[in-house]
């Protein structure tokens, strides 16, 4: 009875402390989310700004019937996967190098935060100028080195890869910082034991560093995956989804539906679908991470 009373009190106190934060979350997150669901199921357009009549899942049916929508979905998955893998590999390599550069590390960290501190729009504009095929510095350097000029953004075969490169250039810093922090926090004892056992550096990396770094790496990957799925600024500035539809990612598709097609409802439906993919990925990823944690010896 006594224990139960204390539990009730603690329960009430807990809720009392959490209530302001939850209320704030409900306003700043719950309301926009709820409203976007309403929009996606309404007849709201820029020409007829009214949620009524509700049309249920009609807007989803319209976008699901659009060939370009599925093209954008597949492209987004491909783009996100390649970019995140690239960011992780480059980020890990840099983080490992920085682990050894003890004295110069602050300088490198300072330099690395520059791309991260820039807004994606600025990054895209800078790279658009650098990669300009006729007057840009990159092609000028290639020509000076006796190499042919490259059509970085005007070729349907190359535009997506160029966008991936620009994205990796900007986002890798964040991965480096996370992984470097993770590496710095690793205990020394397993390495000392491995040295005694005669393990090579490669063996230490694969059997000690990587498994112990997994939680931090997982967090870095999931954060970046969410970021990449939402990518909008780069295609907007660099290519407008072209040439053809070769760089039309899902968020650009949603923008196009909402602001060029004036159909806020269909744009909201596409955006909501994007949100569902991200949610699903996040849940699956965390479940796998939990399972991996459960079997990994610490």
């Amino acid at each position, binding site marked *: 009875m006594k224990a139960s009373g204390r539990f009730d009190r603690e329960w009430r106190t807990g809720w009392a402390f959490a209530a302001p934060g939850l209320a704030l979350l409900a306003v700043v997150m719950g309301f926009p989310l709820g409203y976007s669901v309403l929009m996606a199921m309404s007849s709201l357009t*820029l*020409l007829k*700004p009214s949620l009524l009549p509700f049309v249920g899942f009609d807007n989803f049916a319209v976008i699901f019937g659009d060939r*370009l929508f599925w093209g954008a979905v597949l492209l987004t998955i491909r783009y996100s996967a390649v970019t995140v893998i690239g960011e992780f590999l480059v980020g890990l390599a840099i983080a490992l190098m920085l682990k050894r550069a003890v004295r110069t590390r602050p300088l490198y960290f300072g330099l690395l935060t520059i791309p991260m501190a820039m807004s994606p729009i600025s990054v895209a504009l800078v790279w658009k100028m650098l990669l*300009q*095929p*006729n*007057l840009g510095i990159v092609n000028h350097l290639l020509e000076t080195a006796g190499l042919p*000029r490259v*059509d*970085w*953004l*005007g*070729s*349907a075969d190359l*535009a997506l890869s160029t966008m991936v490169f620009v994205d990796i250039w900007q986002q890798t810093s964040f991965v480096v910082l996370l992984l470097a922090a993770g590496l710095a926090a690793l205990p020394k004892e397993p390495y000392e034991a491995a040295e005694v056992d005669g393990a090579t550096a490669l063996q230490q990396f694969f059997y000690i560093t990587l498994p112990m770094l997994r939680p931090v790496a997982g967090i870095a990957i999931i954060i970046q995956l969410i970021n990449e799925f939402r990518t909008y600024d780069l295609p907007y500035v*660099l*290519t*407008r*989804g*072209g*040439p*053809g*539809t*070769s760089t039309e990612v899902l968020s650009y598709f949603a923008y*196009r539906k909402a*602001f*060029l*097609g*004036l159909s806020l409802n269909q744009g909201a439906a596409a955006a909501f679908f994007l949100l569902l993919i991200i949610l699903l990925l996040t849940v699956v990823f965390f479940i796998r991470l939990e399972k991996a944690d459960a079997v990994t010896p610490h």
Partner: protein
Amino acid sequence: MTSSAWTRTTALSLLAATALTASATAGKAADITLRALMEDVPETRIIEALLPEFTAKTGIKVEFEKIGYPDMHDKLVTQLVSAESAYNLLEVDFLWAGEFPAANWLVDLKPMAEASKFDTAPFVPSMLDLLGRTAEKMPLVPMYNYSMGLIYRTDLISDEKLKTAYKQETGKELALPQTLEDYVAVSKFMKAKAGVEGSAMQGQRGDPNAMEFSNYLFSAGGHYLGNDRSVVLDSPEARKALDLYIDNIKNGAQQGALSATLDDTLRLMCSGKAFSMVTYWWMLPQINDAKACPEAADKVALSVMPGGHGESGGWGWGIPANVPEDQQKAAWTFIQWVQSKEISVKRALQGHAPVRTDVFSDPEVLAKYPFYKTAEQVVASGQSFPIFTYSAEYENLLGTQISTAASGGTSTDEAIKASAAGLKELMSR
């Protein structure tokens, strides 16, 4: 109080009240700041330089926020759907002249024009029509036109060595092209033999390539809509236009043409590295500016699009419905001033693209810019992109098809069929 004292007091009170009201009104005018989102082009800068004159005359301040065209539509729409727009004066592209009035975002300017006896007779009629004028309504007042023509290098077209080489290669004289086929042939020849790009092309998906392709379409004799506004795009002329457009992108244009915009083409032409560009006629004075473009200045001329017809377009002034009435009145004061004959001539002397016939024929303007005669022909021969509620969406749809076809993702036939079907669907929405 005697009756005369009462009369004096009343008269004085009325006088004081009138003075107070007048000063309050004057204070209000002085307090009003007109804010407009403007495309960052020479025309905007020309008007901006004259703004102090307007403020000195009326007390109304005017601020221009200048950005690139691709971002304008979204920024305007988000303001126009809000409770009160931050912009109380609008620069509206003709491509939105169907959408904005249909959404009830604009004030009808006709009653204002009638009340203030604003004379629309001197305006080029096609410009008023392009911007949605009907017998009942006038949503926009023409601001400037951007009909498109061909700007080309005179030094290259008259180069003796190139003339001989062209004659040997094609059996034809190298001269200003008269047909679309000739133009693309000359463009490819220049790229191959003259050490320059044959054509500076703006092939980025969306507005840039949709506008550029429209010139090819009209030049080849094709149309989007028939006289009864039925869709007639699916035609042999449209296929020919797209084939030639793709041919020029691949073999006559600069590398990266499929991602290039107007700014890219201007820079290329300005650097002297291109023979021609299909563009807005008022780009000519920009390229002819020896300070800005020393490599190309005095070597360029303007002509009507080969084939006789180019794309016709224009911007108009509008007033948003979601701003207070005093701001709407101030905006109308500005529109009357900026489009008056006096200010239009001042603007034209700085390179403005007129929308008034009396400015095109003004002796002072013609003395400074003799090519305005050709410009008038460009404007007169221009044909219009389909203007309806979903013009902006159609630009994107058409641009996607053109871009996909040009990058080998679909055939000309499929691209034209899809563009025609898309136009039909959007017009019936």
